[in-house]
């Protein structure tokens, strides 16, 4: 029973928030909230790879781009064939097509995640990081050269169907899935890999399989985030630069590696901060970068460290926090 009621309740709450927000808030705040939620999905999914499994990935924008372009291409080229050219006149068909598009984005990105995760069998630490960076760049250059998705001119003609409800739902789903993974037997294995890969291996944890799985799941949700993004704003490769990957890493580290609520907090903070700093006009990004340095010096473990934020005082569900030599 709970299995049915939970998701239904979630959907109801999410639609309710959207209904209220679209009436009470001005479009600017609404838009920032949507971007916040997309970034929450990105930060949570990267946290699974970076914070929980301890694999250093700086190519997350690449997965987002794969998801964004795959889902957009699906919507533009395949959906009219599957649902008929006039599917957009029906709300249900549009929603169904969009759900499929999000899934397509996630799945294609998951395949990319599998390919990028494979080298993690042989590579460690910074070398793996560079492979992920390279992947992000290769994806961007490849997209620039595909004329069917617009290349440098951007991909036009994608119906803009993303609303706050969709992205909140996406963020909720991402959080729920990754939290459940963390609490499960598998989550403990991932944490073990982060703490000491050799010890984990020695204890019988199939490390390679877990690492690749973490990449695949992380990429899946990043791809979903990309799909939601591509159906929200004009799609162009400039949104998926190396700096975007770095931004997501900052969200995870700032919130606290391995802390899910930390990632949420980091994502919200880092999306809102540049907006709050708009009054500084030209000085905006200078202040932003200085704040970043100061925050890292003041709280090197991130805002939450490895702890989790909770509304309830009593239920501490923090991950074990042994000290390790990083």
């Amino acid at each position, binding site marked *: 029973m709970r299995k049915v009621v939970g998701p239904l309740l979630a959907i109801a709450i999410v639609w309710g928030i959207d209904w209220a927000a679209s009436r009470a808030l001005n479009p600017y705040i609404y838009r920032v909230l949507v971007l916040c939620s997309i970034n929450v999905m990105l930060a949570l999914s990267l946290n699974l790879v970076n914070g929980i499994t301890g694999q250093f990935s700086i190519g997350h924008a690449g997965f987002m781009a794969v998801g964004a372009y795959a889902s957009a291409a699906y919507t533009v080229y395949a959906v009219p064939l599957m649902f008929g050219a006039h599917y957009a006149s029906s709300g249900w068909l549009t929603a169904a097509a969009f759900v499929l598009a999000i899934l397509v984005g996630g799945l294609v990105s998951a395949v990319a995640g599998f390919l990028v995760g494979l080298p993690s069998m042989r590579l460690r630490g*910074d070398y793996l990081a560079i492979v992920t960076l390279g992947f992000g*760049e*290769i994806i961007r250059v490849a997209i620039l050269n595909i004329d069917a998705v617009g290349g440098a001119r951007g991909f036009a003609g994608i119906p803009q169907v993303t609303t706050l409800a969709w992205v909140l739902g996406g963020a909720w789903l991402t959080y729920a899935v990754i939290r459940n993974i963390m609490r499960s037997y598998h989550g403990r294995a991932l944490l073990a890999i982060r703490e000491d890969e050799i010890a984990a291996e020695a204890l019988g944890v199939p490390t390679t399989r877990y690492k690749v799985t973490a990449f695949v799941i992380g990429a899946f949700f990043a791809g979903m985030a990309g799909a939601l993004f591509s159906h929200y704003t004009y799609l162009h490769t400039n949104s998926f630069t190396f700096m975007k990957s770095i931004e997501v890493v900052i969200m995870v580290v700032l919130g606290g590696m391995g802390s899910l609520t930390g990632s949420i907090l980091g994502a919200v903070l880092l999306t809102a901060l540049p907006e709050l700093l708009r009054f500084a006009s030209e000085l905006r990004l200078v202040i932003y970068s200085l704040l970043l340095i100061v925050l890292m010096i003041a709280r090197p473990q991130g805002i939450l460290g490895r702890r989790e934020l909770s509304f309830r005082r009593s239920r501490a569900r923090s991950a074990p926090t042994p000290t390790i030599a990083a």
Partner: protein
Amino acid sequence: MQEFFQQLANGIAWGSIYALIALGYTMVYGILRLINFAHGDVYMVGAFAAYFLARALGVGTVSSASPLMAALVLLGSMIIAAALGVLIELFAYRPVRKSSRLTALITAIGVSLFLENAGILLFGADPKFFPQVIAPRTIQLWGGVLVTNHQITVVLVSLVLMVGLTLFIQRTRTGKAMRAVAFNRDAASLMGIPVDRIITITFAIGSALAAAAGFLVGLTNPKIEPLMGIMPGIKAFVAAVLGGIGSIPGAMIGGLLMGISEYMVVGYVSSTYRDAIAFVILIVVLLIRPAGLLGRNVTEKV
């Protein structure tokens, strides 16, 4: 065949620049295990320092160009960048040195963003024309291959700096101390090596080399702007990893290889994939040799 040698010659000149920047990455990494993301921006600051120095000294036109003035400008920009590198280390990296490596990395990214945006604010975003401190001349080599005296300067200056650096690290007491700190910081500290000072010196040298690269780029491609360090910075870092990060000859080889392969890709594959192929090569090399071409494959201790 002429085309091939033309591409090769230009690739070597361009690769030398990557190599110079890569050296700074590899030195800092060797000692701190930190990817110094701000390094590409130090290279930019070096180029701007040279730009302002040359204008202050009044060398800008072809008639006032002289090798002596050029050397002066080069030296001046290297000193300014070295000072900047030391300041960055002191105020940004030292406070997070004991924290996790990702924290240090984010700090480095913060410094990088700061330098870029402060550069836009201070210098303006528009590209600046780098003064011609050495009068340009085109020289014909065998078989119709054309190079400029600037490109020859680039290769010669980088060669001198790299040989100098190698000698410094192999032959001097400070160099030996640097190697010791890179090998094991705690042990080096116990042996009485002033680790903090060695780290400072490392940053100073790495930044000075980046400034030299900035000067040389300004000389051959006289256009500088506040964001000029981003792409060369990433590529040079990739070059350092390709050669085996932490290894000085590795950085040189990685840089040259990167420059030459970029040229060959454009010449014989496709120019639209120029930036991507560099990474493809990198990934392939890493899959075959996981620690880069000259990197030591450290066996993990249990």
